């Protein structure tokens, strides 16, 4: 059974990395022929980095828009971010000091994550506008992430699993000496769902993760009068 999971995670990791890399390459290769930042926009590259930072870390535009969605989304994403950082301890040895320090926060961040996801799900079901635009996959993603969060928190706070063995399993990946995974049902559910998430991410709306960095309305410098912007296919029109 452990080797099934090992294989699953190897495949999932390959799919995630290659799938995401291909998508990023596709975004990077697609030209942006016109200057279309949503203005007011930064007039320097540094300003653009700050704009994207505010967008990625604080969800600035969403905050402008609707406070409830912002609150739930931010709880979910920031909670998940801390949880993920905490999870690094299962993959590295020795555990870096910053990861050790966030351990207590990382544990309780699971509640923020689950609460945020629950809020988003309730909103999706009860706000008529959001219900209208939801496909089955939109609900399933929330349910999948909720199940991952709940199963993980269950292991942290209710039914503990043998984390030493789990760590041996994942650190062993580097040296092909992964040992045995504890056969706890909660752990197996948790890991299976994580693998599913990794497999599906590159073909899903989770592409908003790389997408935000390639969004011309957010990542362009507002300097069209000062600097001529011309992409290759547009240059060809000039030659003809």
């Amino acid at each position: 059974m452990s080797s099934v999971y090992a294989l699953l995670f190897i495949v999932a990791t390959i799919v995630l990395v290659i799938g995401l890399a291909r998508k990023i390459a596709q975004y990077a290769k697609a030209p942006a022929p016109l200057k279309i930042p949503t203005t007011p926009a930064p007039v320097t590259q540094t300003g653009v980095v700050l704009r994207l930072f505010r967008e990625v870390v604080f969800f600035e535009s969403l905050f402008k828009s609707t406070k409830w969605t912002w609150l739930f989304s931010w709880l979910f994403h920031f909670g998940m971010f801390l949880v993920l950082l905490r999870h690094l301890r299962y993959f590295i040895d020795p555990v870096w000091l910053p990861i050790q320090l966030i351990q207590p926060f990382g544990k309780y961040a699971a509640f923020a994550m689950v609460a945020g996801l629950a809020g988003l799900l309730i909103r999706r079901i009860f706000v008529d506008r959001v219900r209208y635009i939801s496909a089955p996959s939109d609900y399933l993603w929330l349910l999948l992430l909720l199940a991952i969060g709940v199963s993980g928190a269950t292991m942290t706070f209710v039914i503990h699993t043998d984390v030493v063995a789990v760590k041996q399993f994942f650190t062993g990946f580097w040296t092909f000496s992964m040992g045995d995974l504890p056969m706890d049902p909660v752990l197996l559910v948790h890991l299976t769902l994580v693998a599913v998430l990794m497999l599906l991410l590159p073909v899903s709306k989770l592409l908003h993760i790389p997408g935000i960095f390639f969004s011309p309305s957010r990542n362009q410098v507002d300097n069209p009068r000062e600097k001529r912007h011309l992409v290759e296919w547009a240059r060809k029109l000039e030659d003809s």
Partner: protein
Amino acid sequence: MAKAEFKTPELSEYIEVPDLVEGTMEHITCFVAKPEHQEALGFPGEKKENWKEVAIDKMGDLLSRYRSFRVYLDACVKCGSCTDKCHYFLGTQDPKNMPVGRQDLLRKVYRRYFTFAGKYFPKLVGAVDLSEEIVDDWYSYFHQCSQCRRCSVFCPYGIDTAEISMAAREILDAIGIGQKYCNEIIGKVHAIGNNLGLPGPAILDTLEGLEEDVWEETDVAVKYPLDVKGADILLVTPSADFFAEPHVDGLIGYGKVFHEAGVSWTLSTTASEAGNFGMFIGSYENMRRVSLRIRQAALELGVKRIVFGECGHAWRIAYSFLNTLAGPFDFLDPDYPVPQHICEFTLNEIEKGTLEFDKSENDDMSITFHDSCNVARASRMGDKPGGQFEIPRKVIKSVVNNYHDMEWDTIHDRTFCCGGGGGILTDDLMEVRVKGAKPRMSAFKNVMEEKGVTHLAAICAICKSQFTKVFPYYGMDMFQIVSVHQLVSNAIVMNRKTPPEEAPGYGEDDDE
């Protein structure tokens, strides 16, 4: 198609988010372009037999040429942030007028033909085959978008429905179903030089008329020159400025400002149009062709600077795209930005102290300013981000005593579209225009009631025409819309008097 049977929405004190009512606007369909309009722009004249194939191919072509299109179709997580931001949704309750609802009309087809999930699990991700019904929906709802970008302000990924609707219109053009309004107009620009199809002699006649009017009013011979070689400034302004009200009062104002500033300037017959509807249909090639006329005119006339008159989408193209489409402008004076907005020019002169105003000339009015969407969210004025909000307001406050802004969440980058932008300003879409104007009308009515505002000033030809038309639907007077440079024109003190020998008609009687 003037199914004029519709109810004007009632204005509310606050902008309320309405409940969804499906299909309220699905009957909307604007006139389809005739074969000759299509072919003049390089599009097929009639709906192609293999239209499905052509549409999917075109979509693939656009995906490879526009990063915005590619990323925006993938990145949406259906968070709902944009759902209550579109003025057309707020005015019609139709869920397909929610920005994401509109995008999804295209996204569901994109998913079906271009994504793994949509190819193999269409039901799961809401992907559908391209069909006759979907094309009908595209034609209807992508002509209920004014490309105002309000949704993109509030989207956590900056997804801009304008980009999607431009792409959709480009696909529709590629299969032979273009919109008559836009495509006929673009044809006129290519053939004659402006959207209205005004030939040179008609423009000259109008300008001479303006010179006479201003002479009678002020006893100063203000020139409105056309095709003058060697002038310093080429003014490119929307052709509506030549005859429509209140646009023409703005043009009179530009002339007075240039006169008092003591600069030489000219209009051009071939570039007698600032507008560029090529953007509305998403066609880079047409937009470029229209833009090149301006470069050509600048070269032929040997000007040193280019200044744009009051026009919203024209300013987007001028500010954001002109350098790309028709640059480089290294033959112009490098001391000035290319191009400049007339408000930048006027404020600069005000700050230099060359202009004198008598604000009391505008005391019969109390003004508010409507930020036009393309200026507010797709361009800039001045050196600093947000100059597009400050500079027009500074100009207005320099020439009027009574000024009040509308509610903070309906101005600046949160401004509501007039309801007529992006290729919607046609009588066959009157229902869309009236209903889409609702949020702006509500905010205007509030500031009228609370602050005693009487007039709405704008710097966009489309906004001005649209308000003239829709104000009466909401119980307002069509003359409550004014040009910013009309206010300037009213208040400016003409200090550069005309010597008698330069007066119009001088010497005519003595020739005997």
